[in-house]
């Protein structure tokens, strides 16, 4: 079976480079998008969400916060500002962040930056979801 070569890059470090995967589901800007081998060339913008990829039958997950993906000749390059492997996420911290972001929004201080608060809430949500998936797969 044909494989896709996936590379995930962040400004701080290359997260994955040239991993051979069977399929990828990326959180595109207008909804999730599945990519299988021999996909048509495409450039998409990503929003925050969970990137799912399958390596020889096993599902793996990444968190992605804003970025781009381009697909060409069975090669997928994902450029993202921030990304974490599932195992890197700290459950306790994700929960705290979520609580903090939620508090910030409900309090609505006069000098609060709504965009920033929303963004951090979304980030926390993605992390929480990933933690959930991780916990389920463990059981």
């Amino acid at each position, binding site marked *: 079976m044909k494989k896709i070569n996936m590379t995930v890059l962040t*400004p701080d*470090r290359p997260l994955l480079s040239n991993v051979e995967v069977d399929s990828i589901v990326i959180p595109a800007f207008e909804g999730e998008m599945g990519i299988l081998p021999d996909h048509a060339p495409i450039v998409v913008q990503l929003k925050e969400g969970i990137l799912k990829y399958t390596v020889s039958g096993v599902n793996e997950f990444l968190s992605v916060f804003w970025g781009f993906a381009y697909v060409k000749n069975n090669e997928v390059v994902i450029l993202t*500002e921030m990304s974490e492997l599932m195992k890197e996420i700290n459950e306790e911290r994700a929960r705290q962040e979520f609580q903090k972001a939620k508090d910030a929004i409900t309090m609505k201080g006069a000098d609060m930056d709504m965009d920033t608060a929303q963004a951090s809430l979304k980030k926390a949500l993605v992390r929480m979801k990933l933690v959930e998936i991780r916990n389920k797969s463990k059981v």
Partner: protein
Amino acid sequence: MASLRDIRKHITSVKSIKQITYAMKMVAAARIKKAQNSMLLARPFAIKMNEAIAMLKNEMKESDFKKSSFYDLFENEYTSENIGLILITSDKGLCGSFNVNLIKKTLSFIRENSDKRIHIITIGKKGRDFLRRVRMPHVYFYYEMFGIFPKASYVHAEIISQQLIKMYRGKKLSKVHIIFNEFKSMISQNMVEKVFLPLESAFESKFQDENLQSDFYFEPSKEKLLEGLIERDIKSQLYRFLLESQAAELSARMTAMENASKNAGDLINDLTLKMNKTRQAIITTELNEIVSGAGALEE
């Protein structure tokens, strides 16, 4: 001649200075590995980013490109007398000529452009303090950031680039220069002064013919994608400059502190020699006195 006690005191103080400089050297040496590493890790992202931009620009028609909202980042018609400057220095001293060179360059830049208004973004305390002190009438502070070294991260680059774009568009700057030190090797830094905005046509590539169909799908439109990418490209370039400067600062500090430790060692040797000479001189005089005293008694 200095007394024995004075020399001893001097030696102790030099010794403690040597300890400090040596410790600083070791700290810088330990950090530099990390700084170099993060430079290496940031590279693939920047390379792919440039590739993606070149590719997207290839796909665009020239007329669309000229109409797009980010065209002003590439070429602008502002002929105003407002120009910008980004100065990256260190927060702390004790790093040899690292900051001195930057400041000299900045001064000559300010003098050359004395007929223009210069808006400045400073990163690092040293540059800010210096420019505060000189106070030129045509120099304006726009934004300052400090305390980020040696832990500069992408978030810092993000904030700076937001401010930069705001300044560029808000003040209608005709160009923005950047002055910083580039990391060349463990022992040498390279000072760089160049035009940062408008972006060089580093992605100099052909435009699509007006009616050629491309094989790529785009979601959302090319213009939107490119707009986002270019903003990110500015960030990733700034991030690279921060990392370069950070590594260069550490390497400059390491060399400076190594020299200082060596000099302190030499000084201690000299002083010890002097101390021993003085001690011997004192003993000789004492002996002389005793012998001559004894001789006087015999007579």
